């Protein structure tokens, strides 16, 4: 029952999107603005020796994918908290489904939105002259890595916050933190161009950096299976921490 219930609830989530154009618009507009503004502002970086491309949008595109998927998954938790706040979640739980399928359905539905938005970001980059070195298969891997990072980092964090508080405003308040996770990477310049040793240490320790690196390689140079393996391992480790924590918080649903 769990898998079909998750799919039914994912369908419910997807059906909500066109009925909530503000969510669609305002969850995506900042990404597009940052992509276009930063792309124009930092264009000169491409002239630095050793920079891997002469089109900065090409360098920035994987970052824009992360800017779509990581903060964007937080909207799933806002919606989840809204379901708690309105008590609709308890209506769902009077049916013979697991509490997990309520959350999984929400994440699946929002993942569809994020993937569609990430495809739109890549399409914009291509329209601005960027080129995906690994083609469509590489683009798919890039988007899947970005979506998975969103789910296991900010998705888990905000879902747990939603479960603990049931307060959409509390979840919304934490959404800007997602940008910090991405800004503390080599999102805008290559790691070797970061002057501050402290910042380089932070960037190296940031799990998002280990996912962004192979994403950028897929865009610029090709498949580096070693780096892809590290990214998958980082994602798996984060999932191993986040999923039990979330399961523990499921129990608070039944009082």
């Amino acid at each position, binding site marked *: 029952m769990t898998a079909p219930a998750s799919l039914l609830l994912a369908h419910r989530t997807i059906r909500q999107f066109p009925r909530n154009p503000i969510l669609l618009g305002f969850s995506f507009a900042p990404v597009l603005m940052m992509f276009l503004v930063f792309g124009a502002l930092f264009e000169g970086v491409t002239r630095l020796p050793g920079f891997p491309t002469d089109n900065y949008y090409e360098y920035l595109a994987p970052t824009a994918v992360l800017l779509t998927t990581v903060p964007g998954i937080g909207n799933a938790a806002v919606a989840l908290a809204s379901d708690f706040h309105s008590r609709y979640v308890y209506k769902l739980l009077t*049916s013979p489904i697991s509490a997990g399928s309520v959350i999984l359905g929400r994440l699946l539905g929002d993942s569809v939105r994020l993937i569609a938005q990430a495809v739109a970001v890549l399409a914009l980059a291509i329209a601005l002259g960027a080129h995906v070195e690994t083609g469509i298969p590489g683009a798919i891997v890039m988007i899947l890595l970005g979506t998975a990072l969103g789910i296991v980092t900010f998705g888990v964090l905000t879902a747990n916050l939603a479960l603990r508080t049931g307060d959409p405003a509390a979840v919304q308040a934490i959404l800007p933190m997602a940008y910090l996770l991405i800004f503390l990477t080599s999102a805008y310049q290559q790691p070797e161009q970061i002057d501050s040793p402290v910042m380089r240490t932070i960037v190296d320790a940031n799990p998002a950096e280990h996912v962004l690196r192979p994403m950028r390689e897929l865009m610029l140079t090709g498949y580096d299976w070693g780096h892809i393996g590290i990214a998958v391992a980082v994602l798996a480790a984060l999932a191993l921490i986040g999923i039990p924590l979330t399961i523990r918080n499921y129990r608070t649903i039944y009082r």
Partner: protein
Amino acid sequence: MLDELEHVLDDLLARAGGASRLTGDAIVADDLGKTYPDGTEAVRGVTLRVRAGECYGLLGPNGAGKSTTVGMLGTLVRPTAGRALVAGFDVMAQPREVRRRIGFAMQDVGVDAFATARELLVLQGRLHGVSRAEAAARARLLLELVDLADVAGQRLAGFSGGMQRRVDLASALIHLPPIVFLDEPTEGLDPRARTAIWDALDQLRRSLGVTVVLTTHYMDEADRLCDRLGIIDRGTVVTEGTPAKLKASVGSASLEDVYLHYTGRAFAAGDTDLREAA
């Protein structure tokens, strides 16, 4: 109105042909209790039996433990003491089996504001394993039953509280459950809507043989709908019986006098000595 209801219920009855009906005890609760982690004792030792096809009312003021009791029987609140069987299944050990056999209309109605009334009912039916076509057909009939057929395609965000409550009631019936829990089903409704729900419940019970457990603090509602009543006060059932028997036991024609007699104080709907939880 009643003729229309009969027609709708006939259709529903035809659709419920294969649905399992209960015999014997639909609900058995033995010394059921709930104490919250902060020490609040919401329910202390509720023992009751509800026979199949019966309408059993839990009557008491706000905070008496009515909602917590039906929350435990409906698997939404975990008991901390005692045991309960619903449709023969243990609410703690077999919650999904219980949920397959119950409908639950809540005191605090929660709806999906972005969904239409029809979509909400169909989803609830699908989550109960009803096919899409069948769920759509039942949704149409049930929305007729609660007099909302005209607004079936409208989003719930624009519905009044009373309309949302009727949608919630209809959604509790979408899988044609043998047992229905109704937590203050007519709270906040205008007299016309209350009467419509009472008629619908009467007809449902007569046509489908549904077992109903309802909580209320409306004496007239309890008197009109319930075969038997349990008066609940400070987390425990202090007496139970048919409305007529209870009234006879205190020599009065009023359930308020019954309440006064068995609890030692006048009925006050705002009484909140114990926390109302669910």
